[in-house]
Structures are given as structure tokens and as C-alpha cells.
């Protein structure tokens, strides 16, 4: 820690995971990591009060004290002129979650299975293959009134009704296929794990009737608004009062959205001793206001599209003076083009780097009589430009701030409050497991893990019918559920079939030959796989028992290859998961494996 290259570097499974999370793809947040309002919080005042932390420590930057500036600017962005002080900037128009209710993937499909969700927009997703307990997912789709499948190809989700075990004449779901343009056919941005927002111009034009997502959303929105205008719908204001003007000449305009995300001055204003005119783009989130004078669709991206232009489209090649590969003029990083967050944690109390050779920021202000007299940081954009906490002579300063400005206390946290379990990590067995007791503690499985109770949520722990541990993963030749790669002949040539890897010991024991087709079964489903007998799998000794593990890639589905025999390994996986994120437990579950008797 404290050196260039240190710290956490999240590896993402997709190029824009960071961007989609920042813009609130998940249910629990609004853009910029603002909190999702829940039904008990009925007024904006309550909402802002609840989520604006107060710190009595004068050394704590406590940046979230600015929360109302960001929440009000977001509401102004959503509802435009319809957001006024008198209507709490449209707070009542925001959808609210039920308090304590989770709306993750697992929860949504559980509700769908029970029949309470009637319509579903599957946007660039293939849950019929990617969803844990995919058999339950497929049955859930059959309970819908309508399904809109937005994708670049037809997939197992859009065609679920003619899939294995389905009787099309008994399925009432109306399915609409909206062909989408692929990424290179669209203009817009992605944000990588380093928070670099990178603008991409349009390459080839979309083929046939396919359209960029932006156009699909805008046109769908326009049609919904027309329908609500005609009357009959419940709560039309939530749709009709939206600011919905992101088209130019009838086409989605990515620049209009990017500017809205950055934010505008909505009235003439003087902020931080600078004068702005109505319609000016805000230079950074430091200028956002809680009184409705500014808008910003995502406060952390404020500064990405300013009077200086589209900052994400910059392609400058010059490095910062510390020469550690920050390239501050290439694209734009949130927040405020800071390339490494919490970078003041890499300096000592006097603002000098812990590692002289691999420094990120350092304080370079003038010194008079052993005291800092002027303020100047060099290197990366400092995470808070205050003076250091100490002068060169070791005396304390009162105008400095602690390094971790996004925590209320100002300090890093070994464990964060607000998690479903903890505070310390604990070993639990998976919900489906091969042992009757946890060898580390008296508690076998995580008591806070989500458990669903439909007839499709079967579990079989220590069940002789399912004696082996199953796990799933991916192959590098196929992408996610293989929708973009399975139809690609060169990639299918490399990985033509779903396989199950097992140890030589297990193969011997079950008389399975390398390369033969076998059936893998769990309490929830089964599929046919090619056996790959490998030295890379070894039996494990757990307690006094020998436990065998088998592994399968989940990248396949019945739509392609044409044989229809290569299925998703998620037919086996359980619908349970992490108690906080509800990321499904697809890495450990119980299966059996058997030879296929033919003829």
C-alpha cells in the first residue's frame, strides 16, 4: 500500500461493469452511488437527512456531507422543469423499494416463478443460460404475459418457449424480439476498472433493423408517454414528468445524454466565486447545488463533459510528472480526473510520499519557518486538496483532512458496517455441501444466505444420490453464455461441446473413459457432457472422507450448436447466493455423474 501499483485492482468480467455500476444497473442504488429510496422514506427532507452523514471530527473530510447537492441535482436531471422546490424536486415521482426487500436477479426470478411479475425486459442478457438454477428461470419465463428480448441474436431466453421440455401450445407468454446494434456500431462511452471513461465513436452502421440501445430506450419511452397521455395508466406523472429530450433529428444523441450526466447550470449563478450562465455545463461536482440551480445525472461524472468539451474523448499521450502511467490527458477518470483514489493515503502526515521512487502525489507548497505557507500538490489530482496534517517541523495543522474522505470517520475500514453478516470473514459450507458438520465452527451454513422455497428450489446436502461436488466456470473461447461465440465457427471449432472435468481417480472409480459422453445430475436438473479426465482435478480429503469434485463451463445452450445437445451447466446450479450481493452460489453444489446407456 502507499505506492504506485499498490492497492486493490478489481478484475471485471466485462468491459463496462464499472460504468454500468456507476450508472446504477443494480437495484439498490441510484446513479453515483446515491441510495435507493424505500417506501418508509416519503419526503426528500427525510431521505437527505438519513443519508447525509454527520462527523464531529474537524479532521474528517466526510465528503458525503454534500449528499443533498447530488440528490437534488439528480432529481433536476430526471424531471427537469417539473422538479421544483414546492414538489421536493419530484422526489415523490421516484419509484420506492419496499423496506428490507431485495430485488436481485434471484429474487426477481423467484417472484416471476410465483407469478407476481407479469412482464420482463431481458436487455442484453440470456438468463435462460446465465441464471443460476436455469431450469427455474426457464419455467419462470413461461409464467409471464410478455417478454421483450433485446439482443444482437436470438437466444435461449427469447426462444425459451420452444426449448427442451417446453410445450409451445401451452405457453401464453408473448415474446417480442428487438434486434440491437453491437458495441462498435454505437457511439458512447465505457468505463473501465480504473474508472477511465472512454468515449468511442461509431464504426460501421447497425445492420438491418437493429438499433443502438439508446434509440430503443428513447423510442420505447416515447411510445409509453403517448400511451400514458391517452390515459388509463396508473401514476402517469412518473413517466410523463420525466425530462425526455435526448434525441436529435429523431435519433438518440449520446452527447446530449453525456452532457446531462455531467450536469448544467439551470439558472445564472455565482458559485465558488465563479459566475455561470443558465445552460452552462458545470465544471465539476464541487459546483453542484442543493437548491435546484444545477442538474447532474451522475455527480461522480460531473466534469466529464464541460465547457472544454468531451473530456472522455481526449487522447493525449503525456504522462503526469511522477511517470507512473497515469496519462491524465487520455480519456477522463471519475472523480475529477483523479487516477488513483485515496491517493493522499500514499503520503505521510507532512504530505511526502512513503515511496520516493514510486510516488503518486506529494505536497510541494512553500515553507516558511518550518511551516507550509502556500498550498500545492503535484502528481495525480490529490484526493482532497487540503494542506497536509503536519508542517515540515512536525507541528499539527488544523486545516488538513484525513485521507479517506468518503468514510464518515476519515479512516480506512477493515470491515464496513451495514453488511448482512460479519464483521469478520467466517468459513461456512455451501448451502449444498458434502459434509454434515463444519470443521471450523458449529454453524454449518451461512444463516443469512437467501433461501427460496418454491418446488424448483431443491437442495441435497450429504445425499448419497449426489455424492460429488460440482463447480462451474468459463472457457476463454466462449463469452458469457456463448451467445456471441457459439455461432462463430472458428471458436466452436476450439470448444465444440460442454464438458465435465474430473480426476483420474473418479473416472476410474465410475468406469468413465476420457472423451465419452456422461450425464451430470443435481437435485435441480441434468445435462449431457463430454468427460475430460484430467490430472488437474484431484480428490480431496475432508475430515475422514474422500471428496471428489467435477467442473463444467457454463458457456453453452441448446440454441447452438445445431445438435441442441450442448446445454447450460446452470441447469444444475442452486438459486442461493451471497447474503449481501446475492451473487449466486455457482461454484459449489452437489451432483452425480453417470454413464449414458445408448441403444
Amino acid at each position: 500500500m502507499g505506492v504506485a501499483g499498490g492497492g486493490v485492482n478489481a478484475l471485471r468480467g466485462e468491459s463496462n461493469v464499472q460504468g454500468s455500476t456507476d450508472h446504477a444497473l443494480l437495484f439498490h442504488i441510484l446513479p453515483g452511488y446515491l441510495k435507493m429510496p424505500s417506501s418508509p422514506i416519503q419526503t426528500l427532507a427525510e431521505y437527505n437527512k438519513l443519508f447525509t452523514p454527520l462527523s464531529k471530527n474537524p479532521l474528517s473530510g466526510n465528503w458525503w456531507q454534500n449528499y443533498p447537492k447530488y440528490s437534488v441535482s439528480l432529481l433536476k436531471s430526471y424531471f427537469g422543469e417539473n422538479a421544483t422546490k414546492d414538489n421536493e424536486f419530484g422526489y415523490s415521482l421516484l419509484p420506492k423499494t419496499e423496506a428490507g426487500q431485495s430485488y436481485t436477479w434471484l429474487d426477481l426470478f423467484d417472484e416471476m416463478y410465483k407469478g407476481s411479475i407479469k412482464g420482463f425486459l431481458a436487455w442484453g442478457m440470456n438468463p435462460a443460460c446465465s441464471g443460476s438454477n436455469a431450469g427455474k428461470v426457464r419455467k419462470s419465463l413461461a409464467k409471464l404475459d410478455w417478454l421483450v428480448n433485446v439482443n444482437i441474436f436470438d437466444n435461449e431466453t427469447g426462444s425459451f418457449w420452444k426449448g427442451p421440455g417446453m410445450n409451445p401450445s401451452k405457453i401464453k407468454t408473448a415474446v417480442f424480439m428487438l434486434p440491437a446494434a453491437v458495441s462498435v456500431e454505437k457511439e458512447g462511452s465505457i468505463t473501465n476498472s480504473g474508472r477511465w471513461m472512454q468515449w468511442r465513436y461509431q464504426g460501421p452502421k447497425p445492420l438491418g433493423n437493429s438499433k443502438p440501445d439508446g434509440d430503443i430506450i428513447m423510442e420505447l419511452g416515447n411510445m409509453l408517454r403517448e400511451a400514458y397521455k391517452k390515459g388509463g395508466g396508473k401514476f402517469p406523472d412518473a413517466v410523463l414528468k420525466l425530462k425526455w429530450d435526448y434525441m436529435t433529428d429523431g435519433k438518440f444523441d449520446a452527447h446530449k445524454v453525456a452532457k446531462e450526466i455531467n450536469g448544467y447550470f439551470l439558472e445564472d449563478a455565482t458559485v465558488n466565486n465563479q459566475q455561470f450562465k443558465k445552460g452552462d455545463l458545470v465544471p465539476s461536482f464541487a459546483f453542484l447545488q442543493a437548491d435546484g440551480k444545477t442538474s447532474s445525472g451522475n455527480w461522480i461524472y460531473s466534469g466529464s463533459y464541460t465547457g472544454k468539451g468531451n473530456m472522455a474523448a481526449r487522447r493525449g499521450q503525456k504522462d503526469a510528472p511522477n511517470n507512473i502511467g497515469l496519462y491524465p490527458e487520455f480519456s477522463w477518470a471519475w472523480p475529477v480526473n483523479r487516477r488513483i483514489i485515496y491517493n493522499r493515503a500514499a503520503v505521510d502526515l507532512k504530505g511526502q510520499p512513503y515511496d520516493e521512487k514510486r510516488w503518486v502525489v506529494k505536497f510541494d507548497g512553500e515553507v516558511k519557518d518550518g511551516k507550509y505557507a502556500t498550498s500545492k500538490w503535484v502528481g495525480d489530482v490529490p484526493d482532497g486538496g487540503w494542506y497536509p496534517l503536519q508542517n515540515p517541523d512536525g507541528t499539527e495543522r488544523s486545516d488538513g483532512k484525513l485521507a479517506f474522505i468518503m468514510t464518515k470517520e476519515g479512516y480506512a475500514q477493515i470491515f464496513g458496517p451495514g453488511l448482512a453478516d460479519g464483521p469478520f470473514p467466517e468459513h461456512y459450507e455451501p448451502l449444498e455441501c458434502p459434509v454434515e458438520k463444519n470443521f471450523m465452527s458449529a454453524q454449518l451454513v451461512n444463516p443469512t444466505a437467501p433461501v427460496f422455497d418454491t418446488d424448483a428450489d431443491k437442495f441435497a446436502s450429504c445425499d448419497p444420490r449426489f455424492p460429488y461436488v460440482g463447480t462451474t466456470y468459463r472457457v476463454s473461447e466462449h463469452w458469457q453464455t456463448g451467445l456471441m461465440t457459439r455461432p462463430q465457427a472458428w471458436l466452436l471449432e476450439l470448444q465444440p461441446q460442454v464438458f465435465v472435468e474430473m480426476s483420474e481417480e473418479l473416472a476410474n472409480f465410475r468406469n468413465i473413459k476420457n472423451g465419452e459422453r456422461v450425464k451430470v445430475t443435481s437435485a435441480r436438473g441434468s445435462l449431457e457432457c463430454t468427460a475430460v479426465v484430467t490430472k488437474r482435478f484431484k480428490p480431496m480429503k475432508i475430515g475422514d472422507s474422500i471428496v471428489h469434485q467435477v467442473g463444467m463451463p457454463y458457456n453453452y445452450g441448446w440454441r447452438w450448436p445445431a445438435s441442441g445437445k450442448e446445454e447450460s451447466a446452470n441447469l444444475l446450479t442452486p438459486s442461493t447466493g451471497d447474503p449481501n450481493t446475492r451473487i449466486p452460489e455457482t461454484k459449489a453444489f452437489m451432483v452425480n455423474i453417470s454413464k449414458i446407456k445408448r441403444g
Partner: protein
Amino acid sequence: MDKSFFIDTTVCTACRGCQVACKQWKNLPAEKTVNRGTNENPADLSFNTYKVVRMREEVIDGKLKWLFFPEQCRHCVEPPCVGMADNPAAIFKDEATGAVIYTAKTKGLNAKEIIESCPYNIPRKGKDGTLAKCDMCLDRVQNGLPPACVKTCPTGAMNFGERKEMLALANERLGEVKKVCPGAMLLNADDVRVIYLVAYKPELYSKYAVASNSAFGITRQMALARMFRPIRNIPLRLV
């Protein structure tokens, strides 16, 4: 202009981007394959497959190693197949780069003879008798581009450039790898333009990792075949 590849198998991850890039640049059709109990596919080189990454699981000194070997034509410095064909319109060595090039005229050659002359078992025969194999992406190289397999390699396993530079790079890497794996070696570096660095015994990686003949050069079959040929066809270098 004398070119060579350096293939550092110690950093190869068997992503097989090179296999796909080769097919893409050459617009070669995919083969219908099945999983044969291994990730390796297609099963072998063919008329439509110039490159196959071999994958072997070996226990070495009690530790499991997964060995990867991107197999392709070695573009021999003195290519036996050129000598065997003895027909520059069918098989020739591009003087500028050293690439060994097969043309459509290979259709008229004795394919069996040519294939058997190759110490690395590389050329493959099409339905009509034409022979095919890697051509060093000569069209790309002549236009200042690296071969497609090199261009796509994300780990630095595939390298291409001036022979001198590649030999220097190969020896530099050999020195580094030897510190960890004392048995590391370069395979037939003096005889081929595709220089492999392996960490362990080459025969563990692929049956044809090193030249199949004890002495590089004329094979028994080749010698036999030559005996029945008019004397004027004997290439200069064999005289």
C-alpha cells in the same frame, strides 16, 4: 530482411488466439470437431488448419505442469521439402524473409514424399492433392505487418522479427528461464526460423517438437526417392 519467429512456450497460456487469428487472416474454414477429452482442438494440423496449440499434462519432479506448444511450420533454414520438391514453382524459399512457400502447383507433387521429408510433420494434403501449411503470413510481412498469430498474442509468447534480434531475444529469455528450469532449451535454433523455448524435455510437449531425424537434413525416404530421379534434379546444396 532475414526473418524468424521466437515462440516462448513458458509464457503461453493456450488461449489459442493465434489459432483463430491464423484462420481469420487466411479465411480458412472451421473444422467440425468434437471434444475428445481434451481442450486441444482440432486434433491435428490439416489442409485448413496451419496451427494447433498442443496441450500436455505432465508430472515433473512431483509437480503437475500443463505444457503448451503452438505447433506450426518451422520455415527451416535449409528446408528439406524445397529440396524434395525440386520445383521452385511449387515450393520455394522466399529469399528476402526465408519463408517457405507452397503454391497451387504443389498439386503436381508427390505429396507423401514431401510430407515425409518434413522433420516436423507439417505439410498437409487437400482433397485435390494440393499441399498447404503456414506461409509466415508473407503478404503481411511484405507490407510491414507481423504475422497474424504474432499480432494477436496477448502474452508475448509469439514474437517475430529480424532473425538476429529473435535469436538474441531467445537467448536472453533462455538465460532467465534457466534460472528456474535448468533443463530449458531452444529447439533446433540454428536450423529453423521458428525458434521454440521450452522449459522441460521437448518430447513432452509434442511428438514433433524437435526434428524427427537424428541429423538435420536428408532423410532416408528422401535419399531413397532421390536415387530414382534424374541426376539434374539434385539441388545444388546436396552435390
